[in-house]
């Protein structure tokens, strides 16, 4: 079973990387870019029979390791048909 986990910075947490990318996009002429927030994208392939149980487990993994709850949020997406 495959899953995608999106880890994003919480609102209000400074994102120096996103700021730098935004400035660079402005230099390239994309003046309409108002905000850029960088995040992480994790693909996990795991053995599981029950998708709901797998999702619970993936959320546990995210809470423990994949995301830092002090600064980050995450979203788990199960990949259908794989």
């Amino acid at each position, binding site marked *: 079973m495959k899953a995608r986990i999106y880890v994003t910075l919480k609102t209000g947490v400074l994102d*120096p990387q996103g700021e730098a990318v935004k400035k660079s996009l402005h230099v390239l002429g994309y003046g309409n870019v108002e905000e850029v927030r960088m995040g992480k994208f994790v693909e996990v392939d795991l053995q599981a029979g029950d998708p709901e149980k797998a999702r619970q487990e993936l959320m546990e993994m995210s809470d423990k*390791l994949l995301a830092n709850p002090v600064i980050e949020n995450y979203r788990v997406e199960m990949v259908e048909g794989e």
Partner: protein
Amino acid sequence: MKFGVVVFPGSNCDADCFHAVKNVQGQDCEYIWHQQSKITGFDALVLPGGFSYGDYLRTGAIARFSPVMPAVIDFARQGGLVIGICNGFQILLEAGLLPGAMLRNKSLMFICKPVNLKVLNNRTPFTNQFNKDAVIEVPIAHGEGNYYCDPATLEELQKNGSIVFSYCGPAGEIGDDYNPNGSLSHIAGITNKEGNVLGMMPHPERCSETVLGGTDGFGVFASMIQWLKEARA
């Protein structure tokens, strides 16, 4: 006193810390490999700087789950002295022994230079050999030292005197001009509420003897030894 320096794969300040404790301070010191799940007989633990596990995922995130960490957490919870320097600080944050998290430096640059620190609290096991508000020079070397926590945690830190070191100017001025990495409230080092766990981004082990060009870091280890002596007496 017996110090333990915890070595993770990718630690690179372990030998410097060992030297500062063993040869400069003249204390017993042993390395503790990260695979060790039991640690006994130590008076204080040092989590040194470096790039544990390549800083993969987040700084300190993987080291935090090393086999040695439950024992480190136990040691800290029982009141043992734990100092985390640079990457060691990042590991303590990930382990939840200290509140908050590290963000990328505001400038996005890895900064390696001496900075001035103000000793905001000299009534801790790590700073009792300094005068209050003393300005000391200690080098930093990090890419992610931009300390962050939520407003309630910051208030708590301030209320408890947990902000031990802040970045400052040569005369102790505090402000954005003297903050190298954008850290919240110019924080360079904090303790936990109980005061027995310190995390600091600057490297006291790199300025503990004259030959290294500075001795202002000496007081950090000397304070720990003094505190342990008094606790024993």
